């Protein structure tokens, strides 16, 4: 089915479509080059790459208005760049520098930009699902006409708190859209080995009297069309939805996933790269529609590479946090030097 003419896509300008392409390419270049820096030991911890899934975050986030909010799990670089965070602060965060978006206190899994309605970046599988519910609850409580987008992976749907959240979302009529980014694997365990289901995962919404839909994530038009319907349902009817967007990650669960090529065949990965890559498909689409030439696509990619290189330089030349910085950003009242923050002992180091 062709979703290019669905209501939310009909009004897109050529520039809008090129911007989606640019954002997807920027995400991919950012992550490719971040991976290189990881391998050079420039950062610690985990690095969960989003490569292969770019159309999901870019498509959904492109629908957000002033009062819409978004939250996701630990594979968060794509969502961060999609909401407009700049590469410098993101790369610096990976490098553990004080110029990072979380001052070097969060790392790869914990990017935040509340000023862009982006509430993280959460490391515990499904831990963010009631937070997303809370964002929607607050919008409704305050009478604001927005909704919350809460992303999660296919592995998160087997956590209890996800089900608690769905039940409350439906029961309380909360304007929230849960988006399962189903990349087929919860770390090294395939969907069929981890989840009981009949036709698809999103069908579980039926148990909570909640609308659901299945989305082909490789098609940006489809992501936008179906997510838009769910967002309108949330904004206008205060009814939540559960979307399952089928997608694929080319790299391991994280860079530390030593078996990334063992629990799936090289043929499977190759098939996705060749036939289902969301960026190549979008590029082809824009060329067909006459909005983009192969040369322009190349130029945009080059631009993204340059931007990432600059971000690496920025991260490299930034200072790390100091030991004194460790004790900041724990308590608001302490940081703000209020009377409450100055009453009693808050820290116990000596």
């Amino acid at each position: 089915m062709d979703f290019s003419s669905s209501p939310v896509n009909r009004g897109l300008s050529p520039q809008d479509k090129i911007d989606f392409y640019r954002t997807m390419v920027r995400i991919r270049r950012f992550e490719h080059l971040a991976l290189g820096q990881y391998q050079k030991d420039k950062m610690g911890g985990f690095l969960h790459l989003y490569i292969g899934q770019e159309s999901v975050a870019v498509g959904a986030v492109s629908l957000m208005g002033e009062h819409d909010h978004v939250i996701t799990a630990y594979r968060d670089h794509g969502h961060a760049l999609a909401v407009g965070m700049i590469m410098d602060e993101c790369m610096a965060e990976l490098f553990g520098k004080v110029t990072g978006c979380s001052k070097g206190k969060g790392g790869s899994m914990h990017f935040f930009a509340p000023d862009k309605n982006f509430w993280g970046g959460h490391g515990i599988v499904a831990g963010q699902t009631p937070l997303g519910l809370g964002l929607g609850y607050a919008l409704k409580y305050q009478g604001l006409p927005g909704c919350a987008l809460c992303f999660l992976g296919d592995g998160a749907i087997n956590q209890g708190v996800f089900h608690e959240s769905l039940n409350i979302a439906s029961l309380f009529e909360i304007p929230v859209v849960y988006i399962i980014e189903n990349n087929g694997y919860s770390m090294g365990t395939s969907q069929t080995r981890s989840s009981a289901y009949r036709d698809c995962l999103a069908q579980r919404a039926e148990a909570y009297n909640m609308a659901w839909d299945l989305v082909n994530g490789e098609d940006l038009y489809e992501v936008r069309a179906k997510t838009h319907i769910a967002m309108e349902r949330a904004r206008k009817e205060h009814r939540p939805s559960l979307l399952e967007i089928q997608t694929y990650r080319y790299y391991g669960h994280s860079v530390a996933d030593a078996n990334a090529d063992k629990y799936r065949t090289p043929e499977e990965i190759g098939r996705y790269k060749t036939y289902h890559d969301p960026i190549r498909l979008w590029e082809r689409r824009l060329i067909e529609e006459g909005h983009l030439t192969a040369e322009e696509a190349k130029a945009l990619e080059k631009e993204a590479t340059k931007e990432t290189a600059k971000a690496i330089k920025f991260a490299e030349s930034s200072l790390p946090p100091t030991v004194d910085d460790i004790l900041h950003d724990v308590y608001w009242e302490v940081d703000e030097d209020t009377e409450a923050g100055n009453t009693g002992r808050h820290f116990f180091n000596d």
Partner: protein
Amino acid sequence: MRELLYRHALREALDEELAHDENVVLLGEEVAEYNGAYKVTEGLWDKWGSKRVVDTPISEAGFIGMGVGASMLGVRPVMELMFWSFHSVAFDQLVNNAGCVRYMAGGKINVPIVVRGPANGGTNVGATHSHCPEGLFAAFPGLKVCAPATPADAKGLMKSAIRDNDPVFIMENTKLYGNMGEVPDVGEGDFLIPLGKAEVKREGSDISLIAHGRSVLHCLEAAETLKKDHNISAEVLDLRSIRPLDQEAIIESVVKTNRAVLVDESKPFNGVSSQIATLIQEHAFDHLDAPVKRVCSIDAPAIYSHHVEDEQLPNARRVVEQVLSIA
């Protein structure tokens, strides 16, 4: 001064804060139409309606996480755990989300929530319903913890907690809900007790009894016995707030009396009293005339049997015995 029940002092605090700030909302199991499992929220749903006082399903992780998320956008949820013992099913939300999100966001977020409910043993409900997790949660930087012993403290700390811009966990006590105590008249203005301020509940010169929550009452009873039967003048210091902690008051009292018995309903291993003991030895070592002693719950899961549960918990007799061992 008028007297109020501990539960009514809490209710008055909640009622006043609902009036004070339209972003305050009460959430929890049975807090609205049922009027509260322990009647702390009685009448508030009738008065404030379903938007401000909300019954939740039995989904502690779900509704506490929801409150944390809502607080990031400016709502100020006050959430009841019917028992603090149920913290374990919401632990990820309480610790990782309420306690760590500000830090991981580099200070871009704050979480102005209150989680409240009873945290005590002594009601013959067995181990799963008798936990005292104040020390556990105070061990996580980012969280604040209070344990009021009297109706006045319950009201004053609750109001401060709701106005605080960080997550505050209030540990109440089902054995205290029915206690009467003096609480300043509403006409005297907002009654706020700052977090991080201990209070000397009884002056003394020979030994410091340092406690929080219901243990404070055991200390007061023990102090009376010590005076009458042993001519020992015991000072009773009520911590009220566990984190932030009034270290100054602790050290000041020990410097004055040179002896301390710490009374703490949690278990001895890593209880609140463990932290107080280490602070005393670090900051008042030269003033001590005897080892610091503790009275905690006997170190096993809470027993059901009403024949012995009170003996597992701190009580006045056990406090007196411990004092006499060093006085």
